[in-house]
């Protein structure tokens, strides 16, 4: 009723193009919306969204959690409160903010810090109109219920049967745990038009709604190979155009 943040989370088997998809979705959303606050979260421990967004990160949430834990264990150390450290970790890009989760590497019990962190992260999400989350390939964040925010879950599948197996497992886990996603949708990545009907059949077979297909794109492949930002792609790029259409459907459907 009064909580208005739209969350779009990306998941799927490793290497299927989740990060590329998340970046293209971000680009489409930034162009489509004005005056809205958008947060992008890289929740993949092997964070590489920074490359496709062209943003240099200096610290992650994992770093500040380690630091705060050390400060709490040593009364001689005085540091920044976790809330303000978390806020400082949020970087401001062109039309969006960016937060990298990373991971903590210290030893000992992190229960106190982590429970405060979870609460602070949810609070931070609520300060944004739209939040995009790029999850890692595994299913662990679902089973640990760290992927809890309501909204849309997009599972990305490339042209491989294995990616559909993962999608099927994700759906089963989400259903089993009763995670509060309003909808879960499949997005095909790097498909040719000849493979479209196979994709549709496989998607139907695992009980997913289909949001759309991102075609294989030479320019994106080259940029990814060179480690260049995908935000500089022209809106006329065919893959970007395909995602623009999906965003139109998604935000229209949600909003």
């Amino acid at each position, binding site marked *: 009723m009064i*909580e*208005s943040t739209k969350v779009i989370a990306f998941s799927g088997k490793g290497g299927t193009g989740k990060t590329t998809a998340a970046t293209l979705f971000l680009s489409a959303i930034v162009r489509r919306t004005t005056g809205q606050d958008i947060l992008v979260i890289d929740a993949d421990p092997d964070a590489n969204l920074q490359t496709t967004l062209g943003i240099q990160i200096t610290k992650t949430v994992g770093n500040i959690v380690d630091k705060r834990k050390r400060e709490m264990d040593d009364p001689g150390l005085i540091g920044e*409160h976790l809330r*303000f450290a978390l806020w400082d970790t949020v970087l401001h890009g062109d039309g969006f903010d960016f937060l990298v989760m990373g991971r903590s590497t210290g030893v000992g019990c992190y229960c106190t810090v982590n429970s405060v962190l979870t609460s602070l992260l949810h609070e931070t999400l609520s*300060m*944004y109109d739209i939040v995009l989350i790029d999850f890692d390939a595994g299913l662990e964040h679902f089973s640990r219920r760290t992927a809890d925010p309501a909204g849309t879950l997009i599972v990305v599948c490339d042209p491989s049967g294995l990616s559909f197996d993962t999608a099927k497992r994700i759906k089963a886990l989400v259903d089993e745990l009763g995670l509060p996603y309003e909808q879960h949708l499949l997005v095909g990545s790097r498909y040719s038009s000849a493979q479209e009907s196979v994709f549709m059949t496989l998607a139907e077979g695992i009980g997913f709604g289909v949001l759309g297909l991102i075609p294989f794109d030479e320019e994106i492949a080259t940029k990814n190979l060179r480690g260049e930002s995908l935000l500089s792609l022209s809106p006329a790029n065919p893959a970007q155009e395909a995602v623009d259409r999906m965003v139109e459907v998604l935000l229209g459907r949600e909003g």
Partner: protein
Amino acid sequence: MPRRVMGGRLLIAAAAAYFAGRRYCVFTNYNVPGTDNTVVDVAAVLPRLKELKSRLKRGFAPTGILAHLIGSGWVPVKEIAQVTGYNLAFVAKVLEEAMGQGWVEIDITGPEARCRIKDYRVPAKECILAFSGAEQLERKLAVWRDLAKRCSGAYFIFPYGLDAKTTDLIVSTGAGIMQYYEDHGIFQEIVPADLCDIEDEKGFALMTERILYDDIWVKVGEII
């Protein structure tokens, strides 16, 4: 024995906790800046992170004066003194400080000093008002109507069920209705509020800056 009807103060405290639990920054019995001592039972503000961070770095905007510059372009300093009722020396001092913090530009090249607001954005996504409907309902409905353009919406909260006439009266203002079950600590949304875009940006700024400023000081006291 007839059941005791809970008092407005308890209802206000419960409503404040309800909104705070939904990550709003809350102020109870809020004397709304820029009004003639208008008090609302609960004002709940959802902040924008980027704007909060900016205020932590350069200080909160002195909205009592700056609000009059929002969307107004260049404004003579004398005019601000007239509109706000502050004396000219005070206004000049506040503006000078605000210029140092990057909130305003001041132009003294013309016949009279003038200023304009710079890079200002209200630091909140939305502002919801909540009123205990159990006391002075007519007066509170009038307050809500006066403030409606500077807020996203409002709820009237009752510790008991309403008759159809009262329900219609409240719903006709665009406000929502919630019933609070004291024994269970539950707020039940009877009619959702009609949430609207902010029409009065200046009023919205005045309404929200003070709440967020106070809220930051509470958060500074956290231990982790």
